[in-house]
């Protein structure tokens, strides 16, 4: 089992969701986060004063999958989130030792799907 964590542009969320549905990945947790990469954020203007180095709004996806779904999930996220510009985000794949479905007490691979 893997936990796939992706940080993407907020405005690509809809496309990413569409791509995930196509790959039959339906279980997803979404949260709003702030962050920046090497560019340290864009500039913004408040009352004529230019400010730089702000943290940017991003969307974080968490998707727990079985091994056979890992590549499909990565492909779907990449396809939906890629604009080719800086700030498109990253995907992290982490080992997931355990998973429990609260309603049924199922564990492991069965609980993920």
């Amino acid at each position, binding site marked *: 089992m893997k936990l796939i964590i992706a940080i993407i542009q907020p405005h*690509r969320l809809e496309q990413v969701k569409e791509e995930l549905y196509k790959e039959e990945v339906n279980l997803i947790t979404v949260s709003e986060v*702030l962050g920046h990469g090497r560019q340290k954020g864009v500039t*913004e*203007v*408040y009352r004529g004063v230019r400010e730089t180095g702000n943290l940017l709004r991003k969307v974080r996806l968490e998707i727990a999958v079985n091994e056979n779904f890992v590549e499909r999930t990565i492909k779907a996220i990449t396809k939906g989130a890629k604009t080719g510009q800086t700030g498109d985000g990253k995907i992290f794949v982490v080992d997931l030792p355990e998973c429990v479905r609260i309603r049924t007490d199922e564990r492991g691979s069965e609980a993920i799907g």
Partner: protein
Amino acid sequence: MKVSVRKLICCAVFLCLAANLCLAEESSVIPKIDGADTAWVLISAALVMLMTPGLAFFYGGLVRRKNYLNILMQCFIALAALSIQWVLFGYSLAFAPSNGFWGGLQWFGLRGVGLEPYAAYSATIPHQAFMIFQAMFAIITPALIIGAFAERMKFSAYLIFTLLWATFVYDPIAHWVWGSGGWLKNMGVMDFAGGTVVHINAGIAALVTALVIGKRSCYDKYSIAPHNLPFSVLGAALLWFGWFGFNAGSALAANGIAVNAFVVTNTAGAAAALTWALIDWKLTGNPTMLGTISGAIAGLAAITPAAGFVGVGAALIIGIAASIFCYIAVSFVKRKFHYDDSLDAFGVHGISGIWGTIATGLFATKLINPAGADGLFAGNSKQLFVQLIAVAATVIYAFIGTFIIYKLIDVVIGVRATEEQEAIGLDLTEHNERAYTMLE
């Protein structure tokens, strides 16, 4: 005692003419400024001014938060840009005596619009008080249209659209209905505070722009929820408050007609708010906050043309029916024809403006306002016919005028924001600001 403004105006005009001919003595022909009237009209102008920021919050709460500032900015810049347009040439185009279609340009830059009363409009307040009161109407009317194309129009295109629309659509129609020599005014149309000029006009413009700009790109994929309904409630409350200036101020005097307008305005707004809540409750299981404020706006808009001519009973009927008609337009017609009038500018203002203008021809009575006319139920079917002509003329002219202006701007600079700008949100792409921060 209810003293009619219009009757006074007419008398004043004739007296002036007669005095001029017989006596040629200036001091006796200048109408006298009334302190109470002037104070009320100035306060009313300030009340109506507050409606545009009120509208900004009403609309702003209904859009997604990535477009919140864009809506506020569209309303606020209208306040600035159209104030200038109005004193430069807008007031002259709408109200200077000329032909039946447009005002002349002799009042360009307010030349000749002074601090003495201009008897053809109001014999007891300075001409400039009337001018600035009307300015606030000219500002909020184009701002109402924003609801139709919210979240997807380029700001530059919006600014040009608003200026052109105010000049070529609002100013002529204001002249037809309220201006000296306007053809609908001469025909005897009754529009107390702007059923045709403001609500039908903006409502039809909203329908046209919603149709030609197209749906928001995610409209068919998922439902777009209001980002902050409490702001919309605040906005609706400010609109209701300002509407007292809008309608009661349109008496242009601190008199009985103003009080009547005040009372029926509140009654119609209340009846419509309650009606919408009850329809919601019955049909969907819950009385919704959004429905209730939408109902209030529908009722307030519907009573606008009738406010100086009908009594409380008629106001109740006008308010209740306004919510029923608008509910049908917003919940069924819009869904059936599948256009994205995003914040229901047509569904609420257009429909209730049409209903209110027709209702004026039904319920008006000289018992309320001797200077007005009787409507159908007081035995004067001709008035209803005149009201219908005014509705038809406004609908047709607003439809064609808006379409031409939109297409012209679209050809020259393009109206619609790109799909990417729409996805990111117009706050960031058009203004480089955002309404909310996350951490700080």
